[in-house]
């Protein structure tokens, strides 16, 4: 057998391997998304499934034409006209933005601290950051209910320390949502930050000091810029899922204003309005594309290197 044929075949199998992730995405992301997109363009109906139109395969070309003609963007118009949805979206973005900011302020020092420790201690601390994952997420959120309730641990400690003299109503407040978000998403902020900070070459910091840079300034001029990719990754890993978060606001938050995940749940399960719920989901995806694209551009820039 000639070498060329061998090489050609190997190239073919390489292509096949590369194809697998695309097939996976097409099957488990693109196809479901198209279904959701289709439902979002449908109308609710008392039927099984609870929406029309359904594509009539038997009618052939005419069936397809009728089907397309029956689709409408009414649900999206509804999202734009009813304040309920707009407020939900804004609330979600606000919670995500504030939570991400708090996560950054807490997560950066933790990641920085771990990265500056002696090498042999680092894995232990990284382990401690990941450790909560070993307990079910739901159980951890329930534990917070326990801590935050009227006669819970937090109020108990605060009153013993005489910070407050009346129990504070933590539960069903935005504060509880933020506590839950920050607690749950901290590892997603710390790990990517640690991964980049740990790679920052120590001699770069020495070089900065040698060139007249005091320590705090070295942080701003060298460490922080070099950790930007990790910072962006961490922020994105927190911001995007927090925006669509359902469990935490549902269990810890109040009923005065809902995040978009809760609104979506309500439309789907309480109102049985699949088309509107689908429209909410598609619009949310569109909304989250903005920070995604921003991150892509940032990565592109960091791949191309400095200024």
């Amino acid at each position, binding site marked *: 057998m000639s070498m060329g044929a061998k090489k050609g075949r190997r190239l073919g199998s390489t292509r096949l391997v590369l194809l697998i992730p695309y097939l996976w995405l097409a099957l488990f992301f693109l196809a479901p998304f198209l279904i959701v997109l289709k439902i979002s363009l449908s109308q609710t109906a008392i039927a099984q499934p609870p929406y029309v139109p359904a594509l009539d395969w038997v009618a052939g070309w005419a069936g397809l034409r009728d089907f397309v003609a029956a689709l409408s963007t009414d649900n999206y118009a509804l999202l734009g006209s009813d304040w309920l949805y707009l407020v939900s979206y804004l609330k979600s973005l606000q919670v995500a933005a504030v939570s991400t900011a708090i996560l950054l302020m807490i997560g950066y020092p933790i990641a920085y601290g771990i990265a500056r420790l002696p090498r042999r201690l680092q894995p232990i601390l990284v382990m401690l950051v990941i450790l909560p994952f070993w307990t079910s997420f739901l159980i951890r959120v329930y534990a917070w209910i326990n801590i935050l309730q009227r006669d819970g641990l937090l109020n108990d400690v605060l009153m013993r320390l005489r910070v407050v003299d009346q129990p504070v109503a933590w539960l069903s407040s935005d504060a509880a949502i933020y506590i839950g978000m920050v607690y749950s998403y901290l590892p997603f902020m710390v790990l990517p930050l640690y991964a980049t900070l740990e790679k920052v070459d120590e001699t770069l910091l020495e070089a900065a000091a040698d*060139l*007249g*840079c005091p320590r705090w300034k070295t942080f701003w001029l060298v460490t922080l810029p070099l950790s930007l990719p990790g910072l962006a990754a961490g922020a994105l890993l927190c911001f995007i899922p927090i925006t669509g978060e359902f469990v935490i606001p549902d269990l810890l938050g109040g009923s005065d204003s809902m995040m978009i995940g809760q609104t979506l749940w309500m439309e789907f399960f309480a109102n049985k309005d699949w088309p509107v719920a689908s429209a909410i989901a598609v619009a949310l995806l569109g909304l989250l594309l903005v920070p995604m694209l921003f991150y892509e551009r940032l990565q592109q820039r960091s791949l191309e*290197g*400095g200024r």
Partner: protein
Amino acid sequence: MADAATQGQTAGDTPLLRFEGIGKRFGPVVAVEAFTLDIGQGEFFALLGPSGCGKTTLLRMLAGFETPSEGRILLDGDDIVAVPPHRRPVNMMFQSYALFPHLSVAGNIAFGLRQEKAGKAEIAERVTEMLALVRMPDFGRRRVDQLSGGQRQRVALARALIKRPRVLLLDEPMAALDKKLRAETQFELMELQRKLGTTFVIVTHDQDEAMIVADRIAVMEHGRLAQVAAPSEIYERPNSRWVADFIGEVTLIEGMLADGAIETGLGRFRAAIPSGGKKRDTAWLALRPEKLRIDAQRPTGGELNAVAGTVFEIGYRGDMSIYKVRLADRSLMKVALANTSARGQASFGIDDLVWLSWPPEAGWVLTR
């Protein structure tokens, strides 16, 4: 400076830089011990030694990255041990260059001046000046990862020089370059140092490099100063067997001091006896390969020392051939013969009987 160098001392009363009884321990490990040394203004000074001899630790103490366990470091007469690195008027060129990957070439070079709050116009002017100095005038906007190894080295040099340091520290500056580029860079570095008049302190394990670039060399052994002198002095008149062996090739013959000679198992060889050396003291005769003559017959000449042997091995190096000659006591003596004729034929073959000879002043007697 040249006369100061040959004397093995620095010019002037107050040296630019003085190490005074410096010691450094890392836990139980002694890195530097009782180190005292003066370096003069405008010198190109080399700290030379095998890896782990403490030379890099000394350089890092100069830069301020390590604090000596004992002793003082004086710069212009002032103790700088307590001064943090960012306030010291010395700059360092790192072995890895340590260029900032998020800044352009110009951004890297300007970094030091920016910390001094220099004006924009001044920074731009001096960056241009530095880029011209390292002969990279059009590279200011380039990214660091677009540069070759040699170009990075120049940028690192420019970045360290822009603040016009009192002392430029160079940590193995040419270790990452290939042989040809290294040789070119050595001469460029010397030219640059002459032009600027800045004091350069270079750390290297490469003796050829130290000999070529430096006015004076401090040879270090296990954290201690073994010898400090001009390159020619270190090569021709080493003060110990260790230094003689570390620098270049040498054959050492053990013997006893006698009157104007050294008594060895191979015979009595005429040589200058070091002052303070007593008769019957153990001593070693150090002979450099290129100082020996090789002949088929015993050479005549009253003063010449001579010893017979057989050719054991011949190493052809192009410019010269290295002969290993087995002597009567079965030890080997190295002789270097310049290949001045173009025929490339060895004058002697393996197992030939030869005579090695040298004038008394070609040998150097060591007492330790």
